[in-house]
């Protein structure tokens, strides 16, 4: 077996070949596999920034990452193609500071490194699932690819002028709320979509009944109608909506005019 120093002095092609061989050995018999070669290949790619080493890594682990992705993707109800997630997983791995930290450890940390690569594969799928759920309601979806039709995509983010993202707007609104009750309801109802009964169940010391939750929600909605960013959001959503889906009146078409701002209830 090669000594530890030999992996450092190997030319890249030979290092990649030896890594592949030891990866194969690992699957057959862990005790016969030496992690130093693959670890060194990762080190050259990520620490020395060798493009060629990175290409060897992708060639070596592409199919493995694809299997990981497919497993989670199936488990999570697929909306996108596996290959997109594979590319995303490698990109996330390349950018992660944690990977550099692992590469400062001895080659025995190869297991951690590969677990992190797998984490990036899972992350790619979970992240796509989050984005899919956050998509605007009116985005048409291509039935063949299940991707949003690009020309019609209007993200939630670009409906705001003064806030870069929904998270920023969320934080701004949260900071403007006056009471603990309002903050709890804003978080529980509007970010986690919980019903009043579930909120009351979770915070019985704050809400003795659901009636109070409905009353506070009503006040929040009144106040939100006066918020310029949310007015913009309501308008943008209305503009994006089918003018008369299913013959029913558009749900938000006259929110602001019909609900004239009034005083909050206590």
């Amino acid at each position, binding site marked *: 077996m090669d000594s530890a120093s030999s992996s450092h002095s190997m030319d890249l092609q030979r290092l990649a070949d030896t890594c592949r061989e030891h990866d194969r050995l690992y699957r057959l018999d862990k005790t016969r596999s030496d992690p130093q070669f693959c670890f060194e290949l990762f080190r050259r790619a990520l620490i020395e920034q060798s493009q060629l080493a990175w290409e060897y890594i992708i060639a070596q682990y592409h199919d493995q990452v694809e299997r990981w992705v497919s497993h989670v993707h199936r488990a999570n109800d697929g909306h996108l193609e596996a290959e997109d997630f594979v590319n995303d997983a490698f990109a996330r791995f390349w950018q992660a500071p944690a990977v550099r*930290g692992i590469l400062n450890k001895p080659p025995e940390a190869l297991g951690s490194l590969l677990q992190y690569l797998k984490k990036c594969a899972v992350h790619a799928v*979970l992240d796509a699932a989050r984005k899919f759920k956050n998509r605007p309601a009116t985005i048409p979806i291509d039935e063949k690819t299940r991707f949003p039709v690009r020309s019609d995509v209007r993200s939630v983010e670009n409906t705001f002028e003064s806030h870069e993202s*929904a998270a920023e707007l969320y934080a701004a609104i949260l900071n403007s709320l006056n009471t603990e009750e309002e903050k709890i309801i804003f978080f529980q109802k509007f*970010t986690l979509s919980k019903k009043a009964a579930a909120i009351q169940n*979770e915070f019985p010391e704050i809400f003795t009944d659901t009636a109070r939750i*409905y009353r506070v929600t009503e006040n929040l909605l009144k106040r939100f*109608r006066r918020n310029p960013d949310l007015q913009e959001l309501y308008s943008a959503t209305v503009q994006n909506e089918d003018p008369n889906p299913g013959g029913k009146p558009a749900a*938000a078409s006259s929110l602001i005019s019909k609900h004239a701002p009034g005083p909050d209830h206590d």
Partner: protein
Amino acid sequence: MTDNHNLPELTDDILLAYLEGDVSRQVADRIEHSPELSSRAEQLSGEVNILNKTFHRAACPKAGDIGDYYLEILPEDQRRSIHDHLKTCAFCTRELAVYRMQLGPPIKTGSGANLLDNVKVFLATLADLTRPAPKGTPVFAFRGSETRLRVYQAEQVAITLDVRSAEETPDMFSVKGMVAGMGSERTDVMIWREDHLVETLSLVRGGFQLDQLQGGKYELVVRSGERVFYIASLIIP
């Protein structure tokens, strides 16, 4: 404003309750038979939907940070923040469970942070019912054939599920569950189907019941304090 001068005004808070199915049949009938009240309820529903879509998980940590939390490689302040968030967020708790399912136990690289109070996920697996039941497994109202029972186990916890078709709608199902071994802490049960949170409820006297479930593949998450038990695949019926 009233629809009928003899009846009290139905304000928006009542309409919000109506949208969550939390009013009497009498109030629901009144709303449904009034075009004005129905229209107001629909408008409120539209507003809530827009806000839900806009702010869905806006306060959640990134999915990658949940993974780093699982792998125990986050700095302490970030770890603490995610730890606190996990206590109230079903979505992130389920993502943590998915990481546990997919990654296996974290492979340590020698970091020395104090992770004793990290939320730990245990994969609950189907027990072999031909063997004696584990100590503490409930024998609650399981009527009829025992083959309907499924017992999932992890650590000292047993989650017993009784899946039955609904009497009035045979293509819908109900799940009656009992959880043994969780201790006295508050315990929440979350059921998922294809990335969607179907329902969250708390254990009452160690049990729970989920109704009106369609047939299909579900995931079940049982959370109590710093412990999460995950059934990755629950096929109903």
